[in-house]
Structures are given as C-alpha cells and as structure tokens.
C-alpha cells in the first residue's frame, strides 16, 4: 500500500467512530500492533526529544526500504506512533521524505490531542523524516562513490 493509501485507510477507520472515547480505544488497539523496538536499541540516543512520555524510535534501511520499530512508556503515545509507523514504514527513503502527511489533520487528531501530545507527535514525525533523509543522502553518496 502506498503512503497515500495507508492514510486513506486510517481516515476511513477513524470515520467509523463518532465518539472520541471509541477513537481512543482504536488508537490504543493500534498501539498493541506496534512493531516493538529491540531492547538493545532503547538507548538515550534513540529517545525522541520533545515528548513528555518516553518514546524510542529505531530505523533500519534494508532492501531499499526503511523499517521502523518503536516503543513508549505511555499507551496512547504507543498508539500514535504505531499509526505513524503504519503509514511510513516499509517505504523508500525518498517516499518518506516527500510524504505529505495529511491524515493527522483529517482525523481531527490535531485539535483533540493535548498540546504536549501534539508537540510529541510532531517530534516523532520529524525524527522519522530525518532518519529517512539520512538514508536518502547515504544512497546518493553511495551511488556517487
């Protein structure tokens, strides 16, 4: 599924619930599907700055695609990062760097998350993009040499 299709998928799923408690139920459920980061990668380095709860993110570049794993000590945060990874994982660095992430707004998360959470979500997205950018630049350099 493309990044666009993944986003459409999530928007549709969210549309099924009218009550925010149900939407949170869904976010929590997504958290349980999060591809968990290996314990050895839960380092200070992999902690995302700007999150009130602790979030670790690890990225691996294999077969031309980026694979993300993560974890958090807060369950809702785990759900949010799972959602982001669902959309962005297993795509090429270029696709991730160029991705227009409209689903966060479209499902109304922006206005419903507490400011600390939405800042955290933003930090997560930035971290994912910067991983992808690093892999992308590496690819270009490798191609040159």
């Amino acid at each position, binding site marked *: 599924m493309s990044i666009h299709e993944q986003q459409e998928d999530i928007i549709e799923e969210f549309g099924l619930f009218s009550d925010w*408690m149900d939407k949170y*139920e869904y976010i*929590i459920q997504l958290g349980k599907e999060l591809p968990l980061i290996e314990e050895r990668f839960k380092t200070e380095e992999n902690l995302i700055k700007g999150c*009130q709860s602790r979030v670790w993110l690890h990225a691996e570049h294999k077969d031309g695609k980026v694979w993300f794993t993560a974890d958090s*000590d807060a369950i*809702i*945060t785990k759900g949010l990062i799972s959602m982001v990874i669902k959309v962005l994982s297993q795509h090429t660095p270029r696709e991730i760097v160029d991705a227009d992430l409209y689903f966060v707004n479209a499902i109304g998360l922006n206005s419903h998350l507490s400011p600390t*959470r939405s800042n955290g979500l933003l930090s997560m997205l930035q971290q994912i993009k910067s991983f992808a950018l690093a892999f992308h630049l590496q690819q270009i350099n490798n191609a040159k040499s």
Partner: protein
Amino acid sequence: MITSVLNTAELRKDFPLLEQSVNGKKLVYLDNAATTQKPKEVLEALNTYYEEYNSNVHRGVHLLSQKATDAYEAARTNVAAFINAKHSHEVIFTRGTTEGINLISNTFGRMFLQKGDSILITAMEHHSNIVPWQMICEERGATLKVLPIDDDGVLKMEELPALLDDKTKLFAFTYVSNSLGTVNDVHEIIAQAHGKNIPVLVDAAQAVQHMKVDVQHLDADFLVFSGHKIYGPTGIGVLYGKEQWLNVLPPWQGGGDMIKTVSFEKTVYNELPYKYEAGTPDVSGAIGLSAAITYLNGIGLEAIEESEHELIQYALEKLTAIEGLTFIGKAKDRAGAISFLLNGIHPFDVGELLDKQGIAVRTGHHCTQPLMDIFNIPGTVRASFAFYNTREDVDLLVAGVRKAAQMLS
C-alpha cells in the same frame, strides 16, 4: 447522602464557567490547585472598574484617579484583614506567589546571605520556592539545604533541629503541598525556626483558599500567595512581610511610585508599601482579588474548610476502591489535592482519557520535579478540589478513572 455544611449546588451557580460541556460531557473541573474559577462577583468588579473608574493610582488629582486609588488601597486593607496582618502596609501587591518569593530572595538574600551561609527549603516545594533560592545561593556562594520527607509525603520533622543551624539564614517552606496535598505543621515549624532566630517565608499559595490563615497567629515573617488560586484574577498576588523586615530590606525593582524624590544624584525611596510596588500596579487585579476575598468571607473559610475536608475524605474513600490505584502522598492532615497513579500506566494516558470524558485534572510533575524524583515516578494524576466541587464530581471522576483503567489495561 449529602451532609455538606455548604449548599454547594447553589454556590456553583456563582461560577459561570462551570456551567459548560467539554467534549460533549458535563465539565468536571478538578484542576483547582492550578487555578480556580471566578465567581460573578469578581467578574463584575473587574468590569465595573474598567467601565466606570479605570485610572492610574497614587498620581492624579482628578476624581477617577482618586476613586481608583481608594479602591486599590481598600483592596489592600481587605487583604490585610483577611490574613490578619497588623498593618495594611505589610501587604505588598505582586504578580503572584513566584514574584513574592523572588522579591524576598533578592532583597533578603543580597542583604543577609554570605558565603558559607544556607537557605533551608523542603523536599516538597514547588519550583517557584526552589529556583529563586538556588539563584541567590549561587550568586552569594551560599548553599541550599533541603528538609526531607517520608514515604507518605510528610516532612521528617525529627531532622529539622539539625538543619536549623547557625549558618541557616532563612527557612522557606510550603504550607500545603501542591502535588501531595500534605498540610505542614506550620506552627511547629515556625516555633522551631524562631527558637533559633531564623526567619521564615511561608508559601501559602495552596493554603489561603482552603483554611483560615492568620499571619500574626502563625508569627510568619513573610507569607506569599496568588490571587488566581483563591478565585481572583490572574496576574495579582500578595506578599505579606512583617513591618520590621520590610523596613530593613532594600527595595527590589526601581521605577515610578516607589520613590519619594528623584534626582540624578540621589533617589529617596518611598515608604511601605509603595517601596515595593514600582510602576503602575495591577489595579484591576487588586480590586478583583478583593472582591474574591469579600465573596469568600461571605461563605466563611471555616465552612469551606469543613466542606472540602468532607469531600476529600469522600474522594479518598471512593478512589481507594479502584484496583491498582496508588496514592502519592498519604498524609493524614491534607487539603486541596489528591495525587495518584494507576498500576504501570503513564499519568498522561489517564489524564487524556479523563479529559475526553469532560474531567479536567492535571497530569505531570506539577512543577515539583525533585519531589517526583524522590518517589521515582514521571508524574502523577492530580485531582484538586475547590468548595464548588460536589460529590457528583467525585463520582464522575471515579467512574472516569475506572473507564480509563479498563481501556488502558
């Protein structure tokens, strides 16, 4: 059965903000330790001031300025009576508790703190009663010492005598803990400090709205609180200081109103209280705070204390029944706040799901990071109460916490 000494249901109607829905649910406001809502009386006082006599104080000869000055000084007298200060000029209007503490740390610190001296605080202080002292200690080469707490969140009073040594120049401590709800034995603490000729600063930000505070009875040297936590406007606060201290201490901020005469060679400072109120003060804030105090006097602090005590006992009892819930802070003598955690669940998760159910609580470290470190937790969920909270609010909180626990486990 409602046994409250106050007709809370009736009193709630004085607070327009409480009559609203949040996320489609009836608002349950339990973040009163952060800030309280304002009764109509306060809103009307602010409005009347701006509609009818807004003017600068202590300056003009015109009628409006006179009216504004009279109201501003009447506010000071009202505050003085509220805390039973001996003189109204012992009441200095500030921006809030934080500014009051900074005023004393700067003036007292520069005058009396020498290299090798120390300032004593407690382990349960708000950042506002830690950082200003750290700053002045660093500047003066002094040390900040801390009276520890036990596992229940109660001060280890047995360690106090040794900490009140001859290097200690001042003891600054909170009356009521904003994170734990612990009420400290302020009389005993002050008696011990004074026994060694050490002055005290009492942070009463979480006390004055919950119980009668009498500065003369306490024999407090300095006492500070914020207007917005006692049903008044934001931006106004009070520093009480004994006349003999405030007369000795140097001025802090310089500017208009705090001077008698100014020449380029020499400025003669004004007397109390103006010496500490440089610039145009928060006139409307002082008038709003005064209206809040008059409103509270009408209800009676004793009745408020009794009613809130009952409600907190009820809340403790109901919350105790929730499986996996741990209280952070288990003092017997308590007021205002109840902090708790759900087994292995991050406080942010609980807070967020409570918000979606219309329940406003605070989650996080509550500006007491060192205290959270002592308990080795990232923060707590804190429900904090005002006299307008009802048993129904508590029931909704308990149901909300149960729902969150079920979703998050």
